[in-house]
């Protein structure tokens, strides 16, 4: 029985079956920013095209994940050395750490040709994390969101009533309401394909295998090996994001190999399931209720004995 007990005892795969938990490992060190994942996802899931919007944010004109963008490629232009394998990607010892936070400066405002250092362009395909502790799922009052037998988190379009509780619950800002139909939409990890033994559309299309689909345990092993290889080759900044079952969401079903801090890619550095405190809140509420009840009872009991 392949029960995944990572979520504080909450099973994330179907009990009583041999179905292992499935997920994505997105290795951004080989991403070429082609956006095949975005298109393959849209083609398969028949997601509406969502308008021509020139953002001037490098080559990103999708803007971010949303109801009509379930895979999104981030482009980060950085004054960092290119990832050559001889010299390594890491910054020089002792240099200040630039967290790559958004600035108010327009690109290139403060440069002169002579100050130009080395340069790199990071690309990363973002997607729903299919959290082990999924807040969207916790707060869904209708049962539209459910955890599938593959351990993924899926919205059922025939159940969702568009209440939108899940939208603020997501620590990554992934799940989103489609304006014209009112319901929420996000990556299903191609639930309909998985049932037929197929891999999700984005992973299948990805030209450089930056998006890998498979059993989560096996992906984690592969990812750790890849980080080791990259570091050995001098890419000291390679790190995994979302793979740790001890993190704030109990580990993600879709995790990443990044070449810089998560913030640089627009990812929260320390995401926490927004319903983390729900059990203790319920406990306190329970204690409070019991106390109240006891107090009230005591009051009445006391009156009787008077």
């Amino acid at each position, binding site marked *: 029985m392949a029960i995944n007990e990572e979520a504080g005892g909450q*099973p994330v795969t179907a*009990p009583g079956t041999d179905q292992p938990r499935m997920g994505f490992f997105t290795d951004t060190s080989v991403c*070429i*920013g*082609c*956006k*095949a994942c975005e*298109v*393959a996802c*849209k*083609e398969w899931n028949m997601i509406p*095209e*969502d*308008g*021509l*919007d*020139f953002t*001037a944010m*490098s*080559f990103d*004109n*999708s803007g971010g994940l949303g109801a009509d963008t379930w895979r999104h490629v981030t482009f980060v*232009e950085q*004054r960092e050395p*290119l*990832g*050559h*394998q*001889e010299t390594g990607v890491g910054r020089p010892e002792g240099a200040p750490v630039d967290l790559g936070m958004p600035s108010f400066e*327009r*690109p*290139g405002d403060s*440069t002169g*040709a002579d100050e*130009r250092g080395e*340069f*790199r*362009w*990071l*690309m990363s395909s973002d997607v729903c994390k299919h959290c082990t502790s999924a807040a969207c*799922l*916790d707060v869904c009052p209708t*049962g539209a*969101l*459910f955890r*599938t*037998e593959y351990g993924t988190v899926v919205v*059922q*379009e*025939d*159940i969702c009533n568009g209440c939108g509780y899940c939208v603020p619950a997501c620590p990554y800002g992934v799940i989103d309401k489609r304006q014209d139909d009112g319901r929420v939409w996000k990556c299903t990890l*191609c639930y*309909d*394909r998985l049932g037929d033994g*197929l891999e999700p*559309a984005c992973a299948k*299309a990805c*030209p*450089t*295998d930056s998006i890998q689909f498979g059993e989560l345990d096996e992906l984690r092993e592969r990812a750790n090996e890849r980080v080791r290889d990259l570091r050995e080759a001098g890419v000291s900044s390679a790190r995994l994001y979302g793979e740790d079952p001890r993190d704030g969401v109990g580990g993600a079903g879709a995790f990443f190999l990044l070449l810089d801090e998560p913030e640089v890619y627009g990812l929260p550095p320390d995401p926490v399931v927004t319903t983390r405190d729900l059990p203790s809140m319920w406990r306190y509420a329970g204690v409070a209720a019991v106390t109240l009840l006891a107090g009230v009872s005591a009051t009445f009991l006391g009156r009787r004995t008077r």
Partner: protein
Amino acid sequence: MGMRTWIESWPVYRQIRERDPLGRATTAKSARSAELRSRTATADRVVKSVCPFCAVGCAQNVYVRDEEVVQIEGDPDSPISRGRLCPKGAASLQLTTGESRRHTVLYRPPYGRDWQELDLDTAMEMVADRVIRTRREKWEDEQDGLRVARTMGIASLGGATLDNEENYLIKKLLTALGVVQVENQARVCHSSTVAGLGTSFGRGGATTLMQDQQHSDCIIIEGSNYAEAHPVGFQWVMEAKARGAVVIHVDPRFSRTSALADMHVPIRAGTDIAFLGGVINHVISNEKYFYDYLRTFTNAASIVSEDFRDTEDLDGLFSGFSEDTRSYDSTMWRYEGVDVAPASGKRDQHYEARVEDESAVRASETSERPEKHGSGGAVIGGDPAEDPTLTHPRCVFQILKRHYERYTPEMVEEICGIPRDMFLRVCDHLTENSGRDRTSVFCYAVGWTQHTVGSQYIRAASILQLLLGNIGRPGGGIQALRGHASIQGSSDVPTLFDVLPGYIPMPHAHEEQTLDDFVVGTSPIKGFWSNMKSYTVSLLKAWWGDKATEDNDFCFDYLPRLTGSHSTYDTVMEQMEGVCKGYFLMGENPAVGSANTRAQRLGMANLDWLVVRDFSLIESATWWKDGPEIQSGELRTEDIGTEMFFFPAASHTEKSGTFTNTNRTLQWHDRAVPPKGDARSDLWFMYHLGRIIREKLAGSTDPIDRPVLDLTWDYPLEEGDEPDAAAVLAEINGHDADGNHLNRYTQLRDDGSTRCGCWIYCGVYADGVNQAARRKPASEQDWLSTEWAWSWPDNRRILYNRASADRDGNPWSPRKALVWWDAENGRWTGHDTPDFERDKSPGYRPPEGAGGVDALSGTDAFIMQADGKGWLYAPAGLNDGPMPTHYEPQDTPFANLLYHQQRNPTRFVYPHEANRYHPNPGTPGSSIFPYVVTTYRLTEHFTAGGMSRWTPYLSELQPEFFCEVGPELAAERGLSHGDWATIVTARNAIEARVLITDRMAPLRVQGRTIHQIGLPYHWGPNGYSVGDSTNELFPIALDPNVHIQEVKAVTADIQPGRRPRGADRRGLVRSYQHSAGITERTGMEV
């Protein structure tokens, strides 16, 4: 519902039973979710296909349900793509089934204000009538006293997006009609490749295949945006990188390719010969070349004629230059005493001398040897004298060494803007990863080809790879990355004016030319091109069948004759002059995709009729109604007499046929569903157009109609009267006298007993089996996967692979073994099909007087070459020199630092009001256009946009036309990020959104800072995503060998804000011309 079911479906019961107490897992699954299936699994059938976008050739599975295509995905069995697709390939479902495709024929009468609908059959009849009429009106029997038998009144453009079979019918029918101006995208994209690689190695195709790049130790990508333009092919670069290879990207821009490289080397656009020349100099002067390879397989030791003078002697010119004709007498570059015909390029170069000489010999019958004495003491054929020590001052090696001696790292820094140490790092990577045990590959695309010295760019890389011993070996080679699904095919089965199928040259007009004269004038005595007559006769037999007999020279006179360049750019000039009156556009959009788009439209506005075949109403179909010249008031719709026909085209899923990808691999795709409405394949269109014309001409006694009436034109028809593409492919493959399918080109004969539509494709239907349709999974084969589809020639995957073994036939190293000599069994064997005669031993030396294939020795690895050698020095075949020389582009801000000769002296320039050039650097007015502009592709779009700007899923990813500028340039000109900028040249002004990015770095060149501007070229005013066309900016200035335009390096000005509207747009351009003092003579200097 039974009680039990009722209880079991009760949620509380299920939550307990399924251990889902909170009801968040499977108990919450809805009935719909429980029944979800993938639409691929429920499809009625899966049809094997190939992606229609770039030339990587990703295999696709097309899923059909209820006779509708419901999904298109990559085929995991493919050894090329491994089931992957880029965004364009992934969008092919929307491309083929989306709402933007048109399905009705449209017609616009002359001077009409709008389209009207027209019935398909009527439209076909009308087009046939117009072809017949224009052909008669514009027929030429002779020109300048020479027989030409042709019409210059009709032209066609397009073919690289079509199937090989379609290209074949276009070339066959139009040639029989006497139309010579048959062209396609290959002219404007990769024609320089054919001349560059062809003269160097013998064949004009990529020497290797993308999958083999995984074995490279160093990959240099230069003149290509590999990751963006061929994303799925790029997986093999990533594979090599994962195995420890060094990846270097040399490019003016930091692109998505640079982002994945180990090193990005910024370079000033248009200076790659200086860079490569620098590397050649580094390799020679530091003795980093692979000596044994060099000695065995190249012409390093051959002695060159005393007439030869180098650019070092003549300040940038070679000997033989005539200023009056702007051309060279290339006989001065020959080997000493020997005239060899080139395998590519200008095959006809020494025709007169060769034919004259041949007849003299025939008359005197003094020679028993097949080699004949040529004029000026040169012998046709035979091997040149050699100096095995490579020290003779006139041996190729010494000439090469002297030619590049001044291409020093300092010079490279001054010309290209590449810092010295960075340049030397590239040299070190390349040389350390080349040799006996290591190999490096060069990958390039149109960043190299599209220059006035384009062919020589390719030659420079060829020389370097020969010096380093990287040709014909695993992990080595030169990969010409092609950008259309069948642009390799439309060169092989050419819709090109200057070649017949299989690179047989189209005959030029000569006095009383017989087939034998043609063969003598254009083919060598030694090597496989000595079989030119067999290839040509077999082609003529395929086209004219029983009508082609020995007595009538196999209908050789049915072929119309050339009299110079008839490239698509010459056609535009002829259209503006009123010579060319009818035009076919088949999947090509010159109003966006060709240089100087305004000239393209002005030419089209001067036609009698224009046929456009495409998916949607592209700019080339609607310029008369809403084009830029209508907006500016230059043209008025009601004054334009061009009669317009729009025919909707069938998509790749709606027709069967083969695409030839960038690996030279022919892959068959099956029709999944028939096209809807009036949409038809180009095979259907050409076949029925030919049929109707032949019916209308039947009974004609006019001799000009004989070629088309005698044509073999009977193909079996399938559903919807669609010709059977397999039957066309079988004709291309060829048959013997008994009608059996031929198995390989060595079976072809010159006596008329064999028929073959394209000799290099002979074998694609071997044993009567469509070899291009083979789909043995990659997982069951090695990396070459020789049982996946079929590659030309003879299913050889890595060309010249004899060179992977040493003189004695042993692999240079076990790590780099490919084919080798099996002495025990007396044959070549190995992983690949040997590109060599199977049983010719390495020790074979031709007997005295041997000719043809027998004259190739056991070490002549370049079997198409007249001397069997890789050409470091090209003694024939090129119009602008035997060795690449750095010349500045037509429009440039810098003087040529190396020579007084500024530009390629033989380039083609066209003085015309619509085609003004920029002033020379240093002259007054040159500072008006201070910046360098280069163009490129984006992953998200395709060429001139006809297949992407109408596709919403692609358009939203790159919704607007933009320009990339560095922050320093932005500051200099006051450009704002995300705002608009206007870019101006002497040709036109366009506007683009501004992307300011560190990826565009300014360079230090000749002591000053030079800024470069990057412009993607996909946009035009029609479709879903719209914008100005980059090609408005470019002049028509061409490479003299292949007539390709220079669009990778020009100069321009950039200013903030949007361009003027209406007539003011021309006004702005005129004011720039005025300030720069531009006249018809500007830029016309030799």
